[in-house]
């Protein structure tokens, strides 16, 4: 310990000067780095530990979803959208179905709306659980991963019982839902709500006041409200900056206007606030679930939609509040059975763009924290 370090090799007057003097270094992070959540590659320009700039290289998961959409009928394209944000497949499907319904000037019947909202909120919780587990794992806390995935399993079980699939659910159809809820669905959802709230406290016990967690997240990756708006970030990332904006409230779709819930916001726009906002959001989702499950009306679950879907000529942009932010679809119809153009406005793609301004001047370890807090899914970034 007390042995003096031999620093003769650090003699700056030797020929190694060029090497030692060069303060800038370019480091490649990913695409196989475990903390990049899939296949994101970040080229870091560093000065020691300090980040001078970043460049994201994306596209490793590009499957040409928009091109596929142009070559499939409206109905056939529906399952494909589940493969974008695969941890929140239900939300993707909801956004797509609603957009086509808008083109057709159809609205899902009330019963279908409630089923959709319940499924989507369950999916929001599941998505946030994946975020929580992986984000905490990136920062060094292993336990939350097991807790979160253990509790997510119950949601996936409900999904499986409802539509037979756990991940890429294809739960909704254009015009409503194809499946009636199974016997005991309401009980399952209620049971989940009572089961999950104490679990949420458990997560908070592990992290909210944990000194390592607080040190690693407070003041890291700050986004000011004006910057978040300029960069177009949405979802919890925007709300943690203090902008109280949620599409479920701002431009309500489905039956959200009948349900009572709040929009949690943060104050500092740092990683810690984004954590708090998402935790609070899960509580709000439970609140929505508890109300919605009591109020599911009776009636049909499918609107009158022709077998062959041929929307009139026109174009429409519609967006929903996905767990990651504003998920928008811009569909151009030429009156045929296939969309002329499908554009997906992916929240992860736009949010990821903020990475550079969030990590400049911070440390390499913070890059990992910020990637985690942005909650990106590369399947959606690359499409």
């Amino acid at each position, binding site marked *: 310990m007390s042995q003096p370090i031999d620093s003769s090799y650090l003699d700056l007057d030797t020929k190694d000067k060029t090497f030692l003097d060069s303060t800038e270094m370019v480091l490649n992070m990913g695409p196989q780095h475990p903390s990049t959540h899939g296949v994101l590659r970040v080229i870091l320009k560093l000065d020691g530990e300090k980040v001078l700039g970043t460049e994201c290289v*994306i*596209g490793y998961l*590009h499957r*040409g979803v*928009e*091109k596929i959409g*142009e*070559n499939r009928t409206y109905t056939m394209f529906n399952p494909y959208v589940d493969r974008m944000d695969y941890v929140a497949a239900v939300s993707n499907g909801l956004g797509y179905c609603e957009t086509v319904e*808008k*083109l*057709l*000037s*159809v*609205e899902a019947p009330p019963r279908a709306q409630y089923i959709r909202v319940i499924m989507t909120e369950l999916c929001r919780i599941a998505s946030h659980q994946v975020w929580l587990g992986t984000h905490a794992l990136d920062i060094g806390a292993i336990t939350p991963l097991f807790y979160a995935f253990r509790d997510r399993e119950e949601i996936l079980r409900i999904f499986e019982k409802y539509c037979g699939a756990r991940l890429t659910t294809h739960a909704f159809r254009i015009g409503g839902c194809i499946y009636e809820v199974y016997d005991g669905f309401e009980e399952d959802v209620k049971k989940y709500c009572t089961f999950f709230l104490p679990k949420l406290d458990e997560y908070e016990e592990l992290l909210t006041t944990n000194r390592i967690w607080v040190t690693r997240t407070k003041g890291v990756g700050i986004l000011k409200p004006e910057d978040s*708006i*300029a*960069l*177009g970030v949405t979802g919890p990332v925007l709300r943690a900056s203090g*902008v109280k*904006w949620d599409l479920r409230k*701002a*431009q*309500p*779709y489905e039956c959200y*206007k009948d349900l009572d819930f709040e929009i949690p916001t943060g104050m500092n726009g740092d990683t810690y606030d984004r954590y708090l906002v998402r935790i609070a959001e899960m509580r709000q989702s439970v609140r929505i679930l508890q109300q919605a499950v009591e109020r599911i009306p009776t009636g049909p679950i499918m*609107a*009158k939609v*022709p077998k062959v879907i041929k929307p*009139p000529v*026109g*174009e*429409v*942009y519609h*967006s929903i509040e996905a767990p990651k932010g*504003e998920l*928008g679809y*811009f569909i*151009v119809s030429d009156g045929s059975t296939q969309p*002329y*153009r499908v*554009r997906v*406005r992916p929240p992860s*793609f*736009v949010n990821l*763009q903020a990475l550079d301004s969030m990590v400049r001047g911070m440390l390499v370890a913070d890059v990992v924290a910020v990637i985690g807090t942005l909650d990106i899914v590369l399947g959606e970034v*690359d*499409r």
Partner: protein
Amino acid sequence: MPEESKGPGSVSPLPEGAKAPAEAASPDKAPAPAADVKLPSAVSPLTESKPTEAAKSAAPVPAFAAKPAAAPKPPAAPAKPAGPVPEPWESELVTALKQQYGSGILEASRYLGQRCLIVDSSILPEILRRMRAEEGFDYCVDITAVHYPKREQQFDIVYVLYSFPNNERIRVKTRVKDGDHIPSAFPIWPTANWLEREVFDMFGIVFDGHPGLKRILLPEDWRGHPLRKDYDILQQDKEWVQINLGIESGQ
């Protein structure tokens, strides 16, 4: 069939109903003072008739903002059982823009309650800057393009904008020929950076003044722009997959 088209027709106000008050009420409330302030100072000395026009358009505004708006509208376009038809969108913003830019504003329409403005590509940057600075559209939701190979101006560039203060959306579109450059919106909304890169990648449209216009989703040596309509869906198998990965197409 008649039931089908009637059913949706009667239902369609519902989803809009939620949005319509916000969408209709806020533009009249918010940009109105802005237009009023501008009109007298910049335009009114030029033309006498304009203020009366503005007054005329201002008169139906309160009716437009409230629910009864639905009642006076249908008589204007009674023949629409086939489906929703784009109707002209009139507002103070449009009148003000038309006064200022004249024929540069090619079309202002509403379709299914969504407002769309088609402008000439020469005035696009001015319009976008104005939308950002004066009309409160502080959030650029999306930039994308649509390819119409049969048209002379083959590409529609679509800007989806949203205003946080007014809770309203608008689409600004422009049309460009193949090979035309258009100015980047990056100085106006930093979020345009990646969105424009994607449009470049997929459609080959060049944005002037963009800080680093290069492919974003596809490899840099990729040939062609996949979302163009003339890009064959099998082309990638022949052009890239076979050469770089050495696997035969399964298609």
